[in-house]
């Protein structure tokens, strides 16, 4: 697909509010953690679990009044958890003073273990995880720590070239990187960048970096980078200094809006390019909607790779760009 051919990602929502199953998992996970800590601040527990302080307080208050029916089936005092309520309400500290039923952390579900195992397999594409033993050890632990055999969900790691290792070294060392970059307009330029983050979508790898030529954050496809050289020059913009957008493809005010017709089943493949609030009409398994692109060079490549599946309706010069691209390609076979 086109390099940063500006669409807007829809897959980067913030952490959604916790569902009941998440809340239950959290309660079952929080109790053993509190058992291991005689006293812990709400702030520390929040940081540890990646929750807000209010989510922690809410959970602790619930634990404090929960328990088992007990011999009388009446939830007597000794059948309930107890916490030091004064510490919670006055000092924002958690002290578990009595516990019931739970002794240890819960096992992973088969699907939870499968999700982590497949994630690990994907990470083995990264240069520092090429060591398969560490991943095999973890996989074995997750399988043994699951309540049933993890589902067979598996990711065949993509072989990445040495560019990724080189970029990783420069991110680690905090030094600038230089390379030849061919953008989707077909222009080749020597770029000097402050590398900030390596990102990926499935089999495609990207570098997020501060570009000294453009003086802005740019996204580079790794397979369009040639002749990379790690310099000794320290970076001038760190990840902490600039705001890295969550989504790989950022829209811009200069974007062109193109109307397309796409097979409904294939529409998710274009989700990154469909702007929020785009008007979508479905009819007989086809969708008519709009995509945003920064120029037609990316668009013609994208559409030509989805023959019969997606086509451009308008504007006319977008249609012409795709037609000419395909015609020039077909002419090579005459």
């Amino acid at each position, binding site marked *: 697909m086109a390099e940063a051919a500006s669409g807007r990602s829809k*897959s980067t929502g913030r*952490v959604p509010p916790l569902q009941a*199953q*998440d*809340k*239950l998992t*959290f309660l*079952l996970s929080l109790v*053993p953690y509190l058992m291991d*800590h005689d006293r812990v601040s709400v702030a520390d527990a929040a940081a540890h679990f990646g929750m807000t302080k209010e989510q922690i307080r809410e959970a602790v208050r*619930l634990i404090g009044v929960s328990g088992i*029916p007990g011999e009388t089936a009446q939830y007597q005092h000794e059948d309930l958890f107890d916490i030091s309520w004064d510490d919670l309400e006055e000092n924002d500290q958690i002290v578990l003073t009595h516990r*019931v*039923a739970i002794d*240890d952390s*819960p*096992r*992973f*579900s088969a*699907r*939870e273990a*499968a*999700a982590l195992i497949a*994630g*690990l397999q*994907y*990470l083995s594409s990264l240069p520092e995880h090429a060591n398969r033993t*560490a991943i095999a050890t973890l996989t074995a632990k997750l399988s043994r720590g699951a309540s049933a055999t993890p589902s*067979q*969900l*598996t*990711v*065949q790691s*993509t072989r990445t*070239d040495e560019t990724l290792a080189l970029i990783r070294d420069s*991110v680690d060392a905090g030094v600038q990187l230089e390379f030849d970059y*061919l953008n989707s307009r077909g222009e080749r330029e020597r770029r000097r960048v402050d590398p900030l983050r*390596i*990102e990926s*979508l*499935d*089999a495609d790898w990207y570098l997020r970096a501060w570009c000294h030529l453009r003086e802005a954050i740019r996204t580079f496809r*790794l*397979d*369009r980078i040639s002749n990379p050289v790690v310099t000794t020059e320290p970076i001038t913009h760190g990840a902490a200094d600039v705001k890295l957008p969550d989504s790989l493809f950022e829209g811009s005010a200069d974007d062109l809006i193109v109307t397309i017709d796409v097979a409904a089943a*294939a529409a*998710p493949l274009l*989700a990154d390019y469909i702007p929020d609030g785009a008007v979508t009409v479905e009819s007989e398994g086809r969708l008519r909607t709009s995509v945003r692109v920064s120029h037609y060079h990316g668009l013609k*490549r994208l559409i*030509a*790779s989805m*023959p*019969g599946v997606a*086509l*451009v309706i308008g504007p006319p010069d977008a*249609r012409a760009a795709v*037609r000419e691209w395909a*015609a*020039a390609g*077909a002419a090579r076979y005459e």
Partner: protein
Amino acid sequence: MAVAAGSRVPVEERLFSLVLALLATEAGLTKAEILSTVQGYRQRYRASGDNANLERQFERDKDDIRELGVPLETLESPGEPGNNQNLRYRIPRGDYELPSDISFSPEETTLLNLAAMVWREGSISGESRRAILKLRSLGVVTDEPVIGYAPRLRVRDVAFEPLTAALDKHVIVRFGYLKPGEQDARTRTVAPIALIQREGRWILHGEDQDAGGTRNFLLRRIVSPISTTNTRYPAFPESATESAKAELDKIWESRAAIVEVIPGSDAATRLSKRADTGIDGDTLTLHYSDADLLADELAGFGPEVLVLGPESLRGAVRDRLLRTEADHG
């Protein structure tokens, strides 16, 4: 009113109380005992009356809890097998708790956090989030967070969710599958063995019940909703997944296309970086798994690529370009 009072008990409190009660019992509790005594149910329980709604609630709660990996067990009463009212429920501690000899180092915990981040979409992102909560329950303090990476796997095929569920429950599925070049989709009946992601695409490896052998199905060629049957199949050994992967590797290695690229073009730059590409000047040897997917990919490069062989791929790319030209005429 009892119902109004009961509705004030939040769902998570009812589920938490149910897990605690079932963990605490050795012998198990009957449904009547659970409904009449456990927090969240007891408020709505009618000692002499119809508790059908509450019983249905309990059934749903059991499913929800089991989905989280909590081994909720059903015991038949020895004297009266088959008597539903006397079934006893419990959560055996040994199957519930993470074995005490399993621990994770800070480095391993960091790696698992990154593995969980890979999933950002669909129910699998919820599962990895819950796995991480359980991991954090162990209290391992990690070294600095890995900020240098943001790897992501997408699960945009609508068939993905129902197929993972079927894989998990070991039930046979049925779906319409459209092979490239065929006009109509054919219904396939398949026992799922594994879901494999390769080169950014999801593949179902399964035993085709009609063909009587294993087959690979690209999820994006599944053209109907997945219909899940009630027919269970025995779990396949893990080696079945390994041999499926080896088979896919073999296919990749055995298929090769020869193309000529315009020097310095996008095609030249990107195709030469594809895994295992052989480079001889402007002539590249490309390995592939699926000729139709490769033809799509090559068509996207327009005039930058000329396919030299095999002949069928050459024709496929030319036809695609002509079609795109005609569609935009």
